[in-house]
């Protein structure tokens, strides 16, 4: 008997109303790239620890007469190692191939997608675009995670292709572990709330940096009587997210084009729950404190703010920090490292919260077990930041 676990097909994803259609070979290409990610994380990455322990670390100690003190010292010597270089080249390539595949697929059906999106969005006041909103420097200066056009680029009028391609590729980069609607993050928060705080019934929810709304939708479904407001700066994402939610029969979300650094349209203490998923590591040292102050201003007393991220670096070995930090330099995530170095409680303090009230909790993406298998999340190998196992941080406002 083989001990090799099998992966689901990209075809297992739910075909919501604006899901791009894959032909046979496009689906096959996405499946191969998903497997390639799994191969790199489960079979190639373990060799990096051996490289470090057997060669790179002893050579460093011999040369310097001391242990490496920072991940940057580890990075300098590891990136000179041939095995690490080959893994890095393969990983970067896999990411680039995933974008090319997704983009080729959505661009050939760009008109059909725009028409479906326009049809679903027509006449709805729950999509509120604001052309005066500018794209902030933290996402305009570099195409985050190597996605050409980032979240906001429009190639022609009514274009939604960068959003559709992002939706298509979440399955590939997480090896299918986010579930059939790639909504495991939102589901994880909703399930944690229902299990741990069953009496908490938020009436007004704000989701920051919502992209295609994949994490706002499960929150809106978990609290059908709540009004959910999902904000982002990116026009194509908001158009696509609104149509996607409508097609799933979810009507209690407004998708609003706005910058979290300042949300003057919302009154002080007007939200019961403020969430985000993998949002803060794409911020900047200028933007993050302003955004946290906005969260502090908007959150009601007794309200909750909770955010999914990867764990902070503090307390981890310099080797593990180096592994987790690869994306900072090599996957166009320049703020990934700086954000994971922050003392989050201190940041919350500075924003006007009581930072000592901050909690951290591990939440795991809840996936559709009948399609994706029960134990898939735990068996795919350590990917140092790519697997959808999150550290959530947050606090209840006093």
């Amino acid at each position, binding site marked *: 008997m083989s001990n090799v676990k099998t992966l689901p097909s990209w075809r297992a994803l739910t075909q919501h109303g604006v899901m791009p259609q894959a032909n046979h070979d496009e689906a096959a290409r996405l499946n191969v*790239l998903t497997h390639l990610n799994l191969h790199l994380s489960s079979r190639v990455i373990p060799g990096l620890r051996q490289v470090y322990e057997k060669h790179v670390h002893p050579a460093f100690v011999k040369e310097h007469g001391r242990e490496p003190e920072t991940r940057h010292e580890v990075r300098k010597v590891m990136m000179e190692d041939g095995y690490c270089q080959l893994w890095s080249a393969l990983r970067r390539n896999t990411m680039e191939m995933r974008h090319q595949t997704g983009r080729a697929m959505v661009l050939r059906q760009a008109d059909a997608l725009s028409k479906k999106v326009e049809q679903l969005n027509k006449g709805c006041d729950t999509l509120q675009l604001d052309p005066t909103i500018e794209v902030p420097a933290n996402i*305009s200066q570099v195409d985050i995670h190597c996605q*050409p056009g980032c979240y906001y680029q429009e190639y022609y009028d009514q274009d939604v292709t960068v959003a559709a391609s992002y939706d298509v590729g979440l399955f590939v980069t997480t090896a299918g572990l986010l579930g059939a609607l790639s909504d495991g993050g939102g589901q994880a928060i909703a399930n944690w709330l229902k299990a741990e705080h069953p009496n908490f019934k938020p009436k007004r929810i704000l989701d920051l940096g919502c992209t295609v709304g994949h994490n706002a939708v499960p929150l809106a479904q978990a609290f059908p009587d709540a009004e959910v407001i999902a904000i982002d700066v990116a026009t194509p994402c908001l158009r696509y997210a609104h149509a996607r939610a409508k097609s799933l029969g979810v009507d209690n979300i407004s998708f609003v084009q706005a910058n979290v650094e300042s949300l003057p349209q919302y009154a002080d203490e007007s939200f019961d729950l403020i969430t985000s998923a993998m949002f803060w590591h794409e911020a900047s040292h200028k933007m993050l404190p302003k955004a946290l102050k906005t969260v502090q201003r908007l959150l009601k007393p007794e309200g909750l703010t909770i955010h999914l991220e990867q764990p902070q670096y503090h307390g981890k070995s310099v080797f593990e920090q180096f592994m987790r930090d690869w994306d900072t330099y090599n996957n166009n995530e320049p703020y990934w490292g700086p954000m994971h170095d922050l003392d989050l409680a201190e940041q919350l303090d500075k924003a006007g919260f009581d930072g000592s009230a901050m909690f951290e909790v591990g939440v795991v993406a809840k996936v559709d077990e009948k399609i994706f298998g029960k134990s898939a999340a735990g068996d795919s190998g350590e990917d140092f930041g790519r697997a959808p196992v999150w550290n959530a941080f947050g606090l209840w406002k006093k």
Partner: protein
Amino acid sequence: MTSANTSTKKSSADIDILDLAGTKAKGQRPYFLADKQVEQVLSIAMAVATELAVTRERLASLEAVLAEKGIISADAIEQFSPSAKHTAARSLDTQEYLARILRIVQQDKEEISQDDKSMEQLQRELTQTD
């Protein structure tokens, strides 16, 4: 701040899909191998490997469709949705395929832990006299 949040073209007829699909992400691309052209050849090899895997899957679909329907139909292949059993078999095939084409990486990993000797070293040891 930048105001890149607007389109520059009126219609999708004005876009070049081939160029746009493969376009470079903004931000300097890191190269990892000592020789940039070797890395470019690696990139091409991985793309070719992916395309061969896709061809293999298409053949698998063709065979499955032929077996199921007894006819050759391009549309049937386009629409073919593999059963859970087929999906599992393909997943295993794909993992075996990737392990084959990336064998050199696996062997490098093994050599790191095995401390293999070179033939020259072995020759020296085997030809030592008392």
